[in-house]
């Protein structure tokens, strides 16, 4: 895995924006793995690899409901980093390892979110007196500080995943092992998405719509011979 400095900078910048989008700023859904991976694919010059990695990790992300104070993995920046690993080779052989790297990164991302939330709380405790006095400048400082910390977290997470990806690229897997990894991660990704959909559907008419979607999807897949 060799990246030009400008590509590396672009990936880290994109990973930073993606990480910020998950919670702190805008939530425009660029943090969805499908979007993060697709654009990362453009940046590394292999759109297909980006879309494949993004689609695979999206299956895992569909299992997550980012509600309230829930703890969840951060899939966006790791998808960006893993796309660099998958690029340039046949996706059937690179996707499994890239997916595994992305999932490791997602766990690290989830932990980093907890650290961020704690550091935000510490900053607020430090500004308690100013907040109690109604100082608008204190609120602004806290807000800009929180966003800056999340930007740093996201960029660092992308760098770490790129580092893991660079290490993984040195592992020489034979073709059957690389293909087996792809099949394994795809199989479990499908379980994640389907499990999440079944849980969300509950027992009501949404479950009937889920079944209808599965049936229509299967018919289309057969019809177009995917």
């Amino acid at each position, binding site marked *: 895995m060799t990246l030009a400095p400008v590509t590396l900078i672009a990936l880290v910048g994109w990973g930073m924006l993606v990480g910020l989008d998950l919670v*702190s700023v805008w939530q425009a859904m660029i943090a969805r793995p*499908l979007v993060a991976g697709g654009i990362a694919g453009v940046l590394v010059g292999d759109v297909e690899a980006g879309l494949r990695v993004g689609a695979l990790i999206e299956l895992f992300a569909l299992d997550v409901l980012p509600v*309230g104070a829930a703890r969840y993995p951060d899939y966006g920046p790791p998808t960006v980093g893993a796309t660099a690993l998958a690029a340039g080779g046949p996706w059937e052989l690179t996707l499994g390892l890239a997916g595994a790297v992305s999932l490791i990164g997602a766990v690290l991302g989830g932990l980093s979110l907890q650290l961020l939330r704690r550091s935000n709380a510490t900053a*607020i405790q430090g500004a308690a007196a100013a907040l109690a006095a109604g100082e608008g400048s204190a609120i602004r400082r806290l*807000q800009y500080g929180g966003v800056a910390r999340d930007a740093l977290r996201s960029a660092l997470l992308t760098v770490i995943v790129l580092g893991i990806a660079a290490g993984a690229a040195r592992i020489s897997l034979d073709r059957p092992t690389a293909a087996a990894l792809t099949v*394994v991660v795809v199989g479990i990704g499908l379980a994640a998405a389907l499990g999440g959909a079944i849980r969300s559907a509950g027992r009501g008419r949404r479950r009937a719509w*889920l079944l209808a979607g599965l049936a229509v999807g299967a018919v289309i897949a057969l019809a177009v011979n995917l």
Partner: protein
Amino acid sequence: MKSRLRALLRLFAVQGTWNYERMLGVGMGYAAEPLLEELKLSDPQRHAEAVVRSAEFFNCNPNLAGLALGAEVRAEYDGDPGPQVARLRTALCSPLGALGDQLFWAGLVPALVGITLAAVMLGAGLWAIVAFLVVYNGIRIWTAVWSLRTGLAAGMNVAAAIGRSWLPRAAGAVAPAAGFGVGLALPLAAASFLRPFPLTAGLGALGLTALGLVAGYVGGARYGALRYALLAVLVTLLVRVVLT
């Protein structure tokens, strides 16, 4: 008008200081600042109290935070008693959280992501992603504008305004679309990802899917699928090392 626009833009970063103590509180205070500027001129004492209240504990779905922000600011300008404004803020947390989560996180997002994933699997490429971003953000921005405007118009009567609005109906109506969208994507993803492999490999993947569903149903642990995937990758690598 300018202050409303500034508040609206700041609302898009309402979770910028998310934490377990005040949750969205500081972000709400940041978004409230431009709207409270006129109060500073007319009633500095009230303004100082309003700024303190605006940054206290608050939590809801970020897409609907404008309803609470607008209602709170309107109540401050109307001179409603401070404790009443604080109670309004607290009372709005649960309904705005539940409605917003149902509408966006459990409804619109999985519905649109599912359709986008299906389109990508069918070869639409980056255009599907562009369409997803345009549609989602169009709805999100429109909702944010509507929320702030409705909150500012209703003040203490915001709960009634929400009850009369499109919001509860939409939250219920979007759920089937989410189920359908995700359902649509899964067979297409399975077919697209597994087609290059031999039938036995495809059946093996679907076996892992079934096993994962059972494990998730029985275990239900947080990060269940993620842990299961990492364990399966490790086992695959170990098996390959032993066999070769």
